[in-house]
């Protein structure tokens, strides 16, 4: 009997340790490679041209890791490595917004086209979006004295993640897909002596959602 109670308590604790997240993924893709992408490489880049937000570098890395770990045969080029290789053409100010801009750049700077060909890059995936904290409420008081310290109170806040991935196919010279994901969740921080953060993995859920759809597009195994 005690074992069952312990298991139930442990299960409840694990369930509580992460807040609830709801997510939605929409996709629209064309010319999906039926045999996977073979030996071609993929680069995933974050959009940073908006004035009020930047796509987080760690989110872009998370999506890349998700794809690489889902199908080891897909080579994903790291964002920083790619941006440095092609400096200054993929900086926030100069990054092409449409595939036609990239084609114009390759005509104007043939060295860019040569380098892209040498890297055998077939797909460029642009991720645009961010995760923001929304409403927060509650209060917490912490104190410390000679006998020890502690906190008491309760805090809660919401997070919203909105991302869109746009897929460019170099061989077809066309945009071949858009995948968007929305996730939202509520995090809690009760404190009775020790604050216990119960964080909703909003960004992680968005990363998994967009990563799964991209895997379905790029991989022959999914």
């Amino acid at each position, binding site marked *: 009997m005690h074992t069952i109670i312990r298991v139930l308590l442990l299960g409840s604790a694990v369930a509580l340790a992460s807040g609830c997240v709801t997510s939605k993924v929409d996709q629209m893709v064309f010319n999906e490679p039926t045999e996977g992408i073979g030996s071609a490489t993929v680069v995933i880049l974050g959009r*940073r041209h908006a004035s009020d937000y*930047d796509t*987080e*570098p*760690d989110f872009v890395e998370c999506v890349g890791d998700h794809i690489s770990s889902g199908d080891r045969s897909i080579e994903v080029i790291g964002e920083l490595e790619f941006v*440095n*290789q*092609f*400096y*200054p*053409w993929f*900086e*926030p*100010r*100069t990054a092409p917004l449409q595939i036609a801009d990239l084609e114009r750049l390759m005509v*104007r*700077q*043939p*060295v*860019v086209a040569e*380098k892209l060909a040498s890297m055998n890059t077939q797909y460029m995936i642009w991720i645009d979006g961010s995760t923001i904290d929304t409403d927060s409420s509650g209060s917490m008081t912490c104190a410390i004295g000679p006998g020890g310290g502690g906190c008491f109170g309760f805090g809660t806040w919401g997070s919203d993640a909105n991302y869109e991935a746009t897929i460019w196919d170099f061989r077809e010279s066309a945009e071949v897909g858009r995948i968007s994901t929305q996730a939202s969740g509520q995090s809690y921080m009760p404190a009775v002596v020790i604050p216990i953060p119960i964080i909703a993995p909003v960004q992680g859920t968005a990363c998994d959602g967009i990563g799964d759809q991209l895997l379905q597009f790029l991989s022959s195994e999914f």
Partner: protein
Amino acid sequence: MSDSTTSAPDCKPLLWLAVALLLGLLAGCGPATVVVDGDFPPPTMMKLPLTLGVWYDKDFTTHEFFDEATSRTESSWLVTTGQAQVEMWDSMLQGMFRRVVPMTGKPAPGQMNPSVDAVLIPEVAELQYAIPAHTNVKVYEIWIRYRFQLVTTGGNPIAEWTMPAYGKTPTAFLQSDQEAVNLAAVMALRDAGANFANSFARVPAVQAWLQQVLGDQQEASL
């Protein structure tokens, strides 16, 4: 007969400790200095078939900024950008022009300098910043306005123009203040390089000069 010897205790270690503590305290009183250090990759672009001279004024090579509300000595922080400016511009110009030659003196009538097609003199005309105290998040923002002069070796003006650059800390997650301000400055310098590479040949006076030295055909391909 008794023989007693009294020897003074060896105070040297204590003395050194006191000196070290004093030095430590004095160092703590000085401003927190950030020497900007970043990765400035060489640009991937077609080189202009020109030999460009470059002259950095002392104000440029030792450029720094500090809290505007105080004097340099009273400021609690100091950001030194001069060395990083020179590194970035050297790397950028060497990737843009067939040959880049540092000048031995500021171009002027009678000044002996190596023979070049023109001399570029960059200058930081203005710098503004936003610090977390202004923005409430650990994100620093830096705006730089550069003034460029393109002159002959004799100091005769060919073109003069200004150019903005902007950088902000890409992510506020788990970064010290020093790392955050360094990243913002590096982003601003990378943006300056990107803007220069993109806009140099579009400056009307530079365009006219390029047409003159390269002819219509070469200038049109820029």
